[in-house]
């Protein structure tokens, strides 16, 4: 059986990749996709730890995370559409109206 550490390390790598995506990409849609990668890394941790503890709680939390991800995607994409309508671009550098 695969040790738990392998799953945890894999999910850590995925989380770091998602963080790098937030920093590296200048495109609101790809940044949202990076957030999804990070959410999935956390999901993998929950399922793996739940499996090794022998409870279903990890999977149940995963379902709640998926629900929150769906809500986040819906609202986030609505925001993206609304922003694109105003500025005709998706670069986050274009939206500085709240910058002091």
């Amino acid at each position, binding site marked *: 059986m695969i040790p738990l550490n392998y799953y945890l390390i894999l999910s850590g790598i995925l989380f770091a990749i998602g963080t790098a*995506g937030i920093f590296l990409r200048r495109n609101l849609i790809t940044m949202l996709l990076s957030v999804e990668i990070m959410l999935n890394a956390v999901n993998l941790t929950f399922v793996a730890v739940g499996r090794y503890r*022998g409870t279903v709680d990890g999977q149940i939390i995963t379902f709640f995370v998926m629900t929150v991800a769906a809500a986040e995607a819906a609202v986030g994409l609505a925001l993206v*559409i609304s922003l694109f309508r105003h500025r005709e671009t998706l670069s986050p550098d274009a939206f500085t109206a709240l910058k002091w």
Partner: protein
Amino acid sequence: MDVNALAFYVFAAITILASLGVVGQRNPMYSVMLLITSFGALAGLYVLLDAPFTAVTQIIIYAGAIMVLFLFVVMLLNVPREEPGLPGVLGALGTRGMQIGAVLSLVLGIEIVWALSRVGLGWFGQDAAATSVSSVTLIGKSLFTRHAFAFEATSILILVAMVGAVVIARRER
């Protein structure tokens, strides 16, 4: 090497490579497609973890619903490709701030991997590998009894998100 270990390495490699592809190139269309690949491999990992119901949910909800939503928006907006960064090898990474961010996230990754590699099973209680967690009956019972409040709160959350998305994306006149 037994079949389980081989499957783990294959799925893990697909997940990591596809995720790197998502953040590594400039066309959002390809990013969405690669992310669907990554989620498929993650579903395979869930099967290895004795969680087939979660694997199916992952494919239906994530790859099926959420990613289609992303795909819709990418096609609807007809997003232009990202502008290239500064010239030079480092310039491919983008501006100075983005390079610092990339280094910081690399450091974060090394830290997380270092910390997690020393976590043992003892930190999470007994190794109950004999207990099966794959039963949908168990999941349903736990979801509707112990986690009933969170379940109901989730329905409110979805309602709020739905109304919010409609209000935000509406064309004001």
